[in-house]
């Protein structure tokens, strides 16, 4: 059977605009099935687009940007900064004398800004009560589907320098 053959030997208008009610049902169902198949093709193309993007997208290059000096932040305090672009807000937490952690400030649920709770050592999202561990950014509670992107830090002298973003 050819792929796009007409369904019968009648004239096209007789096929598509039949005077019989039963035929009308046949035609509408067939057209609906074609529409569903077209929707399926759209889904397939969407998956192919994701595959294409995952194979050929460039690996981002992150600049090294000084974000704070080591003595600038007391233990248990935070500093807000932007990295890698001015639109990407991040939070730097000094959890102990020699431990600094930095994460994207956007909650992975609906992008509300997270803040640090020193009492519980968690990063909290006030919008829907999502909580992240300050140790590794993992989700502790609430609706966020993914951990917070981690900002990689390096120490250069007295400065803390952001050198990359780690998405887990």
């Amino acid at each position, binding site marked *: 059977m050819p792929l796009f053959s007409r369904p019968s030997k009648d004239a096209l208008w007789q096929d598509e605009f039949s005077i019989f009610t039963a035929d009308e049902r046949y035609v509408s*169902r067939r057209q609906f*099935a074609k529409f569903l198949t077209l929707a*399926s093709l759209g889904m397939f193309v969407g998956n192919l687009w994701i595959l294409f993007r995952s194979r050929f997208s460039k690996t981002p290059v992150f600049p090294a940007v000084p974000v704070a000096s080591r003595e600038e932040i007391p233990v248990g305090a935070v500093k807000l900064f932007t990295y890698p672009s001015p639109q990407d807000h991040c939070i730097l937490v000094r959890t102990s004398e020699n431990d600094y952690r930095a994460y994207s400030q956007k909650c992975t649920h609906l992008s509300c800004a997270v803040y640090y709770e020193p009492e519980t050592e968690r990063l909290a999202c006030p919008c829907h009560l999502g909580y992240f561990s300050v140790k590794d950014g993992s989700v502790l509670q609430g609706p966020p589907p993914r951990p917070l992107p981690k900002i990689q830090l390096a120490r250069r002298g007295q400065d803390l320098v952001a050198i990359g973003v780690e998405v887990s």
Partner: protein
Amino acid sequence: MSAKIDLTRRRGLVAIDGAMALIILLLIVQIWLLSATLEAFLAGHAGVALPAAIFSGLLFSGCLALNLFVDRVDQDSRR
């Protein structure tokens, strides 16, 4: 003769209904697959893109085959 034609058409309708139900089922799975793949891709897990694309292609092939089946049943029931 007319009764035989009616019976053929009724059978055709049942076959078409069944095929369309299957197409809808495949489409629901495909929608879920696309949303899950997009979620994984945005989370940085690019490894799922290839198997998801292959499976989505298989589902589309299934839909296409069922669509051709609907066309054929429709054609037969009109004879």
